[in-house]
């Protein structure tokens, strides 16, 4: 364990020997962690390592079971998130804390509105505009949060934190939903805040971001600090090794696929208003990657194929035209879609594991009465097949880590035994260790003779998994790459369009 760089200044916010238990289970085992003014401190670890719990304790959302939280050397005088925010300790959560029906401006000033008896709308709008200008964001202050894409919402959260004049800013995977360009803007803002003396906590699963931003890195594993390092002391490989606790070999499976007969053919398929005239085919045992920018129509295409959106065009399974007007009809044709939004579209967060696992195939578990024993047996099998790690079987799925939620969603999708599986963003917000497991699952599906479509914004993932890649741009197929021609450079050129220069790192597209 290497010592953190010595600093003359005392930490702004500090955890001293903090332990946290939920019921009989201790989640954090004596954490010492400090945030210093003018520094970016990265906290990294696998899902379930305890990062979120630490952030919640820092932000006043959870109280430690033992140990101390110190602000400016004294016991932190806040017991709720709101009190912490008033003292300049601001947390940007992964699940945004915005009122969807209010405008951007109303959200930013929420709880601290300007004006006396009557609100000073003009001053608030001007203030919001100034903040958004600082962030180089084209978002309008009058826009409703509901109408904004996720990346814009993230920007609004950051603007809100800036408006709160944060002294300590805790960011929970802010880049996970941002595009490459937006991440650049975010980094500039982080650097600016650092120069102003703000103490920042940054988390991300993208280790190259950590290397670039962090002045200090703390690595967590299983609720304990396993490594502390200063800038430049840890390579990305070293970070990953520390997080996982073992050497990471290549996390992608070896290419091996022996494609069989054509299982799916799609002809001049359109999903209004964005997706137009898509044609492609997919063989048994093949993994087809679909790349493209956020908003290029990838998800719309997938949702059209499984009947979640009205679509036109032809779908052929084994050469026979099929009609898919709903998820049920898609399932009857052996097609399944695994959503990118597991919290809103994939899982019932306040229900337990078994209910979620069997929801889409419930008819197989008995008529008229559901056989609870068969459900439990299915869950037991899913837990072992997909290595789902749940402290308790009857717990709410919302309390599982992101990686385990994703494994459960995969188990739920595969319970229907589909021959064509469309997986949208298979590893979003998931740690390295679980990622490699999910890659192995996907590989196994293809090896069993199923046809897999992987939609991903993660370039290494697309390249590492796919036998063939379709690139989408503006709702159309920009190109198809296979074999020798399937290179990062080629994909990026297609993603960006030929008139744009493909330059720099492409891992965020």
């Amino acid at each position, binding site marked *: 364990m290497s010592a953190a760089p010595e600093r003359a200044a005392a930490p702004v916010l500090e955890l001293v020997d903090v332990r946290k238990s939920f019921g009989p289970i201790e989640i954090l085992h004596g954490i010492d962690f400090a945030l210093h003014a003018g520094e970016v401190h990265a906290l990294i670890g696998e899902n379930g390592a305890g990062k979120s719990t630490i952030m919640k304790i820092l932000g006043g959302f959870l109280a430690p079971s033992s140990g101390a939280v110190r602000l400016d050397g004294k016991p932190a005088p806040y017991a709720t998130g709101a009190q912490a925010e008033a003292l300049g300790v601001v947390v940007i959560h992964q699940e945004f804390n915005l009122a969807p029906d209010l405008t951007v401006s109303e959200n930013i000033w929420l709880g601290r509105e300007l004006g006396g008896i009557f609100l000073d709308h003009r001053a608030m709008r001007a203030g919001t505009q100034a903040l958004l200008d600082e962030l180089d964001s084209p978002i309008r202050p009058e826009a409703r949060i509901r109408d904004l894409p996720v990346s814009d919402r993230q920007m609004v959260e950051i603007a809100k934190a800036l408006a709160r004049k944060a002294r300590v800013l805790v960011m929970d995977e802010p880049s996970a939903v941002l595009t490459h360009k937006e991440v650049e803007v975010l980094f500039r803002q982080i650097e600016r805040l650092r120069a102003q003396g703000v103490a920042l906590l940054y988390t991300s699963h993208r280790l190259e971001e950590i290397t670039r931003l962090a002045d200090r890195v703390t690595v967590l594993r299983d609720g304990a600090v396993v490594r502390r390092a200063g800038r430049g002391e840890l390579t990305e490989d070293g970070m990953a090794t520390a997080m996982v606790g073992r050497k990471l070999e290549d996390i992608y499976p070896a290419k091996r696929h022996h494609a069989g007969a054509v299982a799916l053919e799609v002809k001049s398929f359109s999903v209004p208003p964005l997706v137009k005239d898509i044609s492609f085919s997919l063989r048994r045992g093949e993994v087809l990657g679909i790349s493209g920018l956020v908003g290029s129509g990838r998800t719309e295409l997938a949702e059209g194929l499984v009947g979640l959106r009205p679509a036109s065009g032809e779908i052929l399974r084994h050469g026979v035209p099929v009609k898919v007007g709903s998820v049920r009809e898609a399932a009857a044709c052996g097609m399944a879609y695994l959503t990118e939004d597991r919290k809103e579209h994939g899982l019932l967060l306040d229900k337990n594991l078994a209910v979620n696992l069997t929801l889409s195939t419930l008819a197989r578990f008995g008529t008229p009465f559901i056989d609870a024993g068969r459900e439990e047996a299915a869950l037991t099998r899913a837990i072992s097949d997909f*290595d789902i790690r749940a402290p308790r*079987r009857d717990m709410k799925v919302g309390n599982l880590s992101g990686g385990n939620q994703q494994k459960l969603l995969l188990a739920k999708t595969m319970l229907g035994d589909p021959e064509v599986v469309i997986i949208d963003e298979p590893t979003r917000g998931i740690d390295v260790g679980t990622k490699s497991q999910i890659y192995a699952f996907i590989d196994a599906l293809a090896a069993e003779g199923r046809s897999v479509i992987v939609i991903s914004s993660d370039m290494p993932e697309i390249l590492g998994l796919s036998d063939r890649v379709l690139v989408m741009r503006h709702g159309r197929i920009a190109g198809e790459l296979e074999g020798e021609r399937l290179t990062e450079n080629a994909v990026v050129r297609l993603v960006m369009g030929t008139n744009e220069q493909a330059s720099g790192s492409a891992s965020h597209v």
Partner: protein
Amino acid sequence: MSDSTRSDSTRADLARADTARPSLAARLPGLSALGPLLALILLVALGAYLNENFLSAGNVTNVLARSAFIGMIAVGMTFVITSGGLDLSVGSMAAFIAGVMILAMNALLPSMGVGVPLILAGMGIALGAGLLAGLGNGLLVTKARIEPFIVTLGTMGIFRSLVTWLADGGTISLDFGVRQLYRPVYYSGLFGIAWPILVFAVVAIAGQVAMRHTRFGRYCEAIGSNDKVALYSAVNVERIRLMTYVLLGLLVGLATIMYVPRLGSASGSTGMLWELEAIAAVIIGGTALKGGYGRVWGTVIGVLILSLIDNILILADLVSPYLNGTIQGVIIVLAVVLQRSKSSA
């Protein structure tokens, strides 16, 4: 599929050890789930303490038989609310169905004569009218995609005004001869238990089983919990929602069948505020108003609590019966406070 580290496998072992025997505490309903049951027991004890006639067979039968109408409706309401809906029209619907049923029986009397077939025809008409009324509500909610609150606020007014119109502002009365034949359906019973109580018991048990052990109940909970997830999970969201309203309509029809022999008439004020009592019973019983979690046995307890308060106030001179609404209101608010403390725990 991949190697685990030592600590990982320890964690997995722990998980497996835990899964082998689900803890007893997790299997027992929590205090908030038992809250309504405790309240009911307290009320019974209070009633027995205040009036010696409280536990007499006559009084118990009276309370239960009066609970039966709201009870059957409340069981149906549990499914509607669990799947994220609401139905404000059930009280007016009951009045309307009663009106239609009585008019139809009176009209059929000359051709069919007084007899069991006439009663059965009336029952069929009541169920048919309930089915159609529920279907109307359900189609407006699912096909026209109008908020359930708005739809049923509208149909509440429509049914109420239709029955007043049918009665021409007065009362629709069942023919005296038919009434004599029909009376036992409310006043008589089997093994000393009144028919409405028996029917209510069957509805309650069937409802509890449907909610816990059938796809329909599971889907209702899934849709109320997150209808997007249900849609993405191949659940026919629209059809299940429609079915909850149709089921409720049928149960309103059934409740009306048991109710009409009691008075033998219907008017513009029949079934007044039943919808609010039914909704209150569902909420007191622990079903979440926003949907996602339904508890039919809780609803039954909620119905009993509401009628017991009424009954105790009449039997005991403790508080004016006019304060009935106040006490019921306090209970409803308390029930929701209890629910909230559960979700934050």
